[in-house]
């Protein structure tokens, strides 16, 4: 959102008592947390866990018998003195989460910081797009795993290749969505802005960026998702910490319940990330919500 817009927003908010602003914020946070989790969703998850329990622990079906069941995983996870060394009471568990989170945050920040401006510029200046777009379109379909050898050759140390791989996947999503966002802005807004006396910088700041914002945030959501899954792939190949490493290491050491603990953790952490982005996006784009002012 543009500077002018935020400053007038702030000015107009002054008339509202502080408490009301607080309540409004609380209300929105609460709604954001509750809406994507209706009762049917909870029932669905319960059924899934039941299926998992029946196949692995109750009927012990042929191909499922080696898999850890929900009861086994839960007892391991809540065990203060875990058999395989990883549970909610061990420092190790949180260390792996922190490592992965840190890497994703870095990769995601890079993908946002480089991809969004690049995409915006591509969408805005057709000539620039003509240069850059073909390269991106050729590189984009290459699976992240195919980049592993080059990443290790190119990047110094152990950390850089992993972050690079997570960055790469997210980068395409953030760039292309920002570009599409600009292209979806109606020509009449550019005309109006121009005829009201905007400089090119004004057009960029007040039309291109806010107009593309909904798509930018779609890109960020997708970006953070793909950053997570390419990160896990990278950690499996070359890493000594992180949830991906934990999964692979537990597989090698036959510590099967830990695999599932790490997987579920990945799911939850990934969900939290995308929820955070959604909340930020919503607060920046109040104009897309009808009936709210």
């Amino acid at each position: 959102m543009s500077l002018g817009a935020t400053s007038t927003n702030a000015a107009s908010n002054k008339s509202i008592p502080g408490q009301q602003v607080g309540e409004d914020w609380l209300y929105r946070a609460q709604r954001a947390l509750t809406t994507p989790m209706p009762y049917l969703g909870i029932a669905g998850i319960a059924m899934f866990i039941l299926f998992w329990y029946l196949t692995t622990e109750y009927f012990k079906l042929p191909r499922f018998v080696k898999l850890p069941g929900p009861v086994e995983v839960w007892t391991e996870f809540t065990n203060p003195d875990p058999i395989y060394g990883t549970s909610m009471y061990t420092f190790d568990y949180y260390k792996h989460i922190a490592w992965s989170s840190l890497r994703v945050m870095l990769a995601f920040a890079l993908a946002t910081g480089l991809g969004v401006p690049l995409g915006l510029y591509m969408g805005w200046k057709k000539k620039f797009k003509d240069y850059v777009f073909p390269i991106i379109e050729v590189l984009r379909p290459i699976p992240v795993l195919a980049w592993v050898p080059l990443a290790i050759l190119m990047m110094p140390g152990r950390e850089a290749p992993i972050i690079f791989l997570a960055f790469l996947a997210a980068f395409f999503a953030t760039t292309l969505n920002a570009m599409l966002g600009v292209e979806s802005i109606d020509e009449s807004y550019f005309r109006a802005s121009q005829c009201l006396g905007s400089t090119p910088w004004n057009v960029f700041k007040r039309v291109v960026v806010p107009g593309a914002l909904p798509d930018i945030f779609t890109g960020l959501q997708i970006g953070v998702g793909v950053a997570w899954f390419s990160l896990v792939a990278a950690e499996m190949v070359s890493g000594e910490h992180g949830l991906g490493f934990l999964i692979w290491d537990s597989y090698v050491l036959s510590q099967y319940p830990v695999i599932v603990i790490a997987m579920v953790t990945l799911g939850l952490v990934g969900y939290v990330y995308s929820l955070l982005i959604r909340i930020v996006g919503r607060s920046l784009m109040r104009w897309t919500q009808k009936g709210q002012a």
Partner: protein
Amino acid sequence: MEKSAGSVGKVVVDNISKSYDVGRLKEPVLDRCCLTLPAGQLTVLIGPSGCGKSTLINILAGYEKPDSGSITIDGAPVGGPSSDRLVVFQETALFPWMTTFENIVYGPTVQRERLRDEIEKDAAGLLETVGLREFRNKYPSQLSGGMQRRAELARAMINQPRLMLLDEPFRGLDAMTRELMQEYFLRLYEDKGQTSLFVTSEIDEAIFLADTLLLMSARPGRVIKSMPITLPRPRVPSMLTSTEYLRYKEEALDILHEEALKAFEGGSQAAADFVEAYEERETVG
């Protein structure tokens, strides 16, 4: 602001022609079109659909260049788009990501020529005039169609342009809203006296608003008749039934009917509404 603002904005359009490429052929849209917009006056341009009215507006605004001919405003030739010639579009072009107020102050804010306080005072005044005071912090999607057009008028007016270009700004609104909009618009015009060119295809709207009514030919467009409308200002809706008004309407419709028929025969079905309006008049008379 008093009527003295009307001393600027005299526009002279001299012999402009414009054609578009359609396949290998050149389709002329405007053919040696001449017109003068007297400073501080409200000129209304009416003509059959597809006669090049929008093209003329685009050229005046600077979005398109004529193939030949010249346009001057207060003696200086016009170039690209600029805030001294403002367009109010057919479709609303309010920025959906800004509130009504932010939209209205947009022009002066980016032009950075006036003080913030002054801009905000002006904007508050305009919001009052167009009846949107309570909607200043709403986003365009929360406004009705009529409110959006009014906000758009205000957004253009605040720039005190030398020339206001209005390209069928009330098209698509229902009859009641349209009437209200005409009154809001007149209130703004009669208050500020900015030179304005208002394009429409509604004869009643045209006569009700105009100081001068320009009638345009079928494509390729050219101004074929300039009719001064001497109804007194401020205009009120009751004038729509005066004998003077009906005389204007009859005269204009006679000419337009002929042009509409030409367009009709020329393959444009868009002129049907004029033919219809004309025939309706016959039966009433």
